[in-house]
């Protein structure tokens, strides 16, 4: 433990000392607005690594990713490419590593996003392919989340929705997306199971997203995904940059599994405060509940996560401490340092994310 802390300290010193200079920049073409006449092929991506320690000495808190206990572990390498020429665009995004493996539905596949897009008009867009889900506040990529660990709402919701969607912007404050997606979430192809046989699939999940911008810096998304195979989830995701320094996010969702198979409800609040140019502090407070189903009663867990983002050029250092407390009926158990069942767990982690 002491050796690990010493190594981590040296690692932190190295990170903070890194002269991660802003790379030379390039001008966009003249007359482009936000749409260059001759845009380049866009490359982007990230790599991440972490060390996590549950104070019980055991691996508790089973939310997505960062699952290793007391190990300097890796997340993933994420590589994306995008090109837009005129009205047509494509995005391809690959990932490799444990975080990728835990987020990808098919072993051996590595695609996070793969879709084509066409601007029929300035206001109307069509997209089709395999895309990150439109539902929820948190995402798979560590660069898209403030907290390094993930919420129960994220873990239990969809990761990807493959399908076809149309988006219309009524104004710069209101837009609507509607689409049809593969019958199951998180699958590259749709399929149906008949007895012990997997047969051809079904594109039968309907999804919609209403986006509103009530005020400058405030965007809210009202989402629904519903289908006979995937169940129905209603979701509200919103974030408001209230001042230059303070941002408040909220995620609330309710899910009903098909065939009265239960579901979940949850709400999470994300206040963040930028205390300097390089340091932002944030909290995540979450309440998550599994609905009762049959004779199984409802159960719940509350989580409080305190996180800092410390930026050093392209690297973000993320120290985080998390306290989870569950009801006894919660289906996933925690254990204490003696290996006995307990209702609470506390974890500390430190992660480094490099984005390019």
């Amino acid at each position, binding site marked *: 433990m002491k050796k690990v802390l010493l190594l981590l300290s040296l690692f932190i010193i190295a990170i903070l000392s890194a002269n991660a200079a802003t790379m030379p920049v390039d001008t966009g073409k003249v007359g482009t607005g936000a749409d260059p006449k001759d845009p*380049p092929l866009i490359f982007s991506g990230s790599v991440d690594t972490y060390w996590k320690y549950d104070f019980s000495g055991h691996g508790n808190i089973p939310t997505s990713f960062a699952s290793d206990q007391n190990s300097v572990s890796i997340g993933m390498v994420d590589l994306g490419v995008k090109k837009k020429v005129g009205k047509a665009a494509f995005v391809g995004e690959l990932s490799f590593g444990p975080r990728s493996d835990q987020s990808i539905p098919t072993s051996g596949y590595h695609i996070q996003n793969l879709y084509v897009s066409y601007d029929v008009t300035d206001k109307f867009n069509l997209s089709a392919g395999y895309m990150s889900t439109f539902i929820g506040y948190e995402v798979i990529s560590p660069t898209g989340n403030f907290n390094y660990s993930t919420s129960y709402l994220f873990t239990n919701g969809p990761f990807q929705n493959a399908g076809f969607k149309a988006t219309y912007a009524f104004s710069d404050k209101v837009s609507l997306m509607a689409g049809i997606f593969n019958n199951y979430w998180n699958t590259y192809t749709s399929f149906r199971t008949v007895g012990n046989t997997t047969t051809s699939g079904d594109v039968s999940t309907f999804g919609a997203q209403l986006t509103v911008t009530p005020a400058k810096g405030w965007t809210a998304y009202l989402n629904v995904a519903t289908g006979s195979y995937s169940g129905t989830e209603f979701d509200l995701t919103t974030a408001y940059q209230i001042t230059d320094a303070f941002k408040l996010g909220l995620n609330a969702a309710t899910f009903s599994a098909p065939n009265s198979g239960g579901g979940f409800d949850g709400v999470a609040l994300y206040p963040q405060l930028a205390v300097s140019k390089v340091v932002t502090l944030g909290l995540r407070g979450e309440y998550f509940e599994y609905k009762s189903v049959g004779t199984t009663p409802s159960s719940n867990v509350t989580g409080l996560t305190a996180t800092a983002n410390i930026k050093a050029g392209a690297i973000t250092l993320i120290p985080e401490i998390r306290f989870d407390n569950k009801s006894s009926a919660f289906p996933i158990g925690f254990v204490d340092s003696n290996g006995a069942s307990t209702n609470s767990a506390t974890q500390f982690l430190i992660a480094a994310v490099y984005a390019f």
Partner: protein
Amino acid sequence: MLLIQTVYGQKSLLALDEHDKYIYYQVVSQPGASADSLDKKALGFVKESLPKSSVKTTGDTTIILKDRFVTYSVLAFAKHESGEIKFTLTIECKNDKYRYWLTDFVFIPYEKNRYGVFVPSNGVEIPIEKSSSHVDKKEAEGYLDQTGAFCKQLGDQLKSYMLADHPTNKKTEQQPVVKKVVTDKW
């Protein structure tokens, strides 16, 4: 490397106006050109080169428009949008000369969304004069360099356009000549 050299040091092209705002200001002589003709050319330039800008004309020979340009960060082989800079361009024309200036520079950083696309960060707008209080010094200087380079590039294009002739009548298209042969007589 040439591209990098072009961008470095372009911050010096910018000055501070009486309100301590960054400005790129140029007065250009064009002897023999009337104010009206210069104004028409300026409007033509705006329509061709800045088609998505919001244009407002005040008086007979003043054009004010708002637009933005995208900034890119370059890291070896990897290149992506890092943000956009909004600006206001004003063009005023008189007989034999015109002047133009770009100011009101505001940086909007981009962030990568869940679909792998870089989009403006919600609610974050940084006047370029205050960028050093939000980002590190090198990054802030990079934005100023990019702004200076963009202003020079736009200004050079404007000057070229103003000097060139832009006939209003379209030339009639010449039909391609197709040779014909008569094979029944020889």
